[in-house]
């Protein structure tokens, strides 16, 4: 089933859906194409953006950890991971590019009219820097200048951690439910979890399709994933408990949207079961001989998407002002992503696979182990 051909077909189909989303967005305009409202202005795209960015961050971190600490399991595939990190970063840019009405203005006015107080400005700046560093690192890896690549990798990790922590801060300054010191570390753990899961999937695919022996790397990825899920579990449990037991109404209500409110299925099935319990269960049964780790990773990735989605939406579902009761359901605002919004994310996934496949070919990395 997961033959190269089938994977490509599926990826192209996904990419086609993404193109439909682009057409839909440009044709009808963002106000019509997206189910975003005045009250819930950030939806699926922001979740998707954070999702892809986190994968990129995680992959970069894992690759660089390998470099820096000379962990063979990670180091031998670091170039692949960096490549994938670049591609997922571009997937993230694709998603946010669709979301923004004027992405070009961002570039122009971020330079000529910057606001240094704004986490959004820092996000743009840091991720631009991060992109340059990643590309440079990849270039030097390709040139086999490992020392230079290692230094760039180290700077990249620093930029990456700052950028991703800043992303957490970006949320936390805006809404009560998102605020708190835990958000930056939460984002980092999320990134490592995402990176590990994606790594397991891609390395398994590479191992199968390219006939490489990557057992030790995959095993390391598996373990990293299990640890990250474990940490995330503790994180979420303590966060939910503190939110539900002793906190301001906005925070409490935000948590309640997930625990018992309109996002309860997203939370219990998506985030907890698919994101944590099922992967942990599968991982416990997985070995070098079976492919359970891939299923665990897929499940974890699904779960993590829900996690991003829940995080972004729950922070907005509690209205910031009192509405007429008739307009709300169970006192919460509602959001269901539109076709176009979902399709953008699907397109991002398709783009990632296709881009990786052809990039690997282009850079002649199919059979390469560093």
């Amino acid at each position, binding site marked *: 089933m997961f033959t190269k051909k089938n994977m490509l077909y599926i990826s192209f189909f996904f990419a086609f859906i993404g193109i439909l989303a682009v057409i839909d967005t440009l044709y009808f*305009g*963002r*106000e019509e194409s997206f189910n*975003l*409202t*005045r*009250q819930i*202005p*950030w939806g699926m795209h922001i979740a998707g953006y954070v999702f892809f960015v986190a994968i990129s961050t995680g992959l970069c971190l894992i690759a660089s950890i390998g470099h820096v600490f000379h962990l063979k399991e990670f180091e031998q595939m670091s170039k692949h991971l960096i490549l994938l990190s670049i591609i997922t970063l571009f997937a993230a840019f694709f998603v946010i590019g669709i979301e*923004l*009405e*004027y*992405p070009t*203005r*961002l570039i122009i*006015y*971020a330079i000529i*009219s*910057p*606001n240094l*107080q*704004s*986490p*959004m*400005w820092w*996000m*743009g700046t840091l991720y631009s820097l991060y992109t340059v560093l990643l590309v440079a690192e990849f270039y030097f890896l390709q040139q086999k200048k490992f020392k230079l690549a290692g230094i760039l990798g180290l700077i990249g990790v620093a930029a990456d951690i700052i950028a991703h922590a800043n992303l957490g801060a*970006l949320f936390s*300054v*805006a*809404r009560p439910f998102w605020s708190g010191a835990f958000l930056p570390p939460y984002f980092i753990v999320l990134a490592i979890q995402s990176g590990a899961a994606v790594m397991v999937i891609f390395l398994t695919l590479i191992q199968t399709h390219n006939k490489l022996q990557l057992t030790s790397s995959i095993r390391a990825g598996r373990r990293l994933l299990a640890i990250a899920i474990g940490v995330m579990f503790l994180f979420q449990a303590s966060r939910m408990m503190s939110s539900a037991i002793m906190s301001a109404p906005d925070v409490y209500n935000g948590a309640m949207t997930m625990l018992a409110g309109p996002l309860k299925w997203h939370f219990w099935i998506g985030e907890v079961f698919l994101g944590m319990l099922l992967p942990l269960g599968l991982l416990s049964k997985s070995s070098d001989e079976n492919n359970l780790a891939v299923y665990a990773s897929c499940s974890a990735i699904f779960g993590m998407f829900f996690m991003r989605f829940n995080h972004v939406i729950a922070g*907005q579902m509690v*209205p*910031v*002002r*009192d*509405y*007429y*009761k008739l307009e709300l359901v169970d006192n919460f605002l509602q959001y269901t992503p539109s076709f176009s919004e979902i399709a953008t994310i699907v397109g991002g996934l398709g783009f990632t696979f296709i881009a990786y496949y052809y990039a690997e070919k282009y850079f002649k990395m199919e059979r390469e182990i560093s």
Partner: protein
Amino acid sequence: MNGKKRYAMVIDTHKCFDCKACTIACKMENGVADSDQEYRNWVDTGEIIGVFPNVSQKFTPGQCNHCTNAPCVKVCPTTATYRDENGFVRVDYEKCIVCKYCMIACPYDARFVSSTTHTVDKCTFCAHRVGRGELPACVETCPSKTRTFGDLNDPKSEVSKLLRENEYKVLKPETGAEPNIFYI
């Protein structure tokens, strides 16, 4: 015209009877689209609370608070949102990229994506009218004159007088935004 101005609005909720004249007048004056998502000001129709027949209901007009320490101004990556010399928080439509970060950051739900400008839009305190020496459209049209507009730096202004003579509060003081809409 001496000294800096600090324009503010005092809203006497006791006088508001939820007629929504302010909302429509604003839409006309400022060309805001006919959409339930797009409005620069509003009246929140409170829930009928209590148990029959001992019930009550509140009507609360709202709009951009033109905060002194505005969260929207802080988060805007391109300084499209800024506070002008009269204290009006404004949007430069040319610089806005519609990242909607300001909409998320605003504690008052004052901002929306406009289908006419295709940018984020919000109340301007009718700066164009104030510049002509007129009152904002919502203030002018209000039947019960729930809204009073003026310069807080002028001790003789109606708003200064109202704040001296009445107990007042602002919405969500805990955000530290220092809003300039006062409720009495």
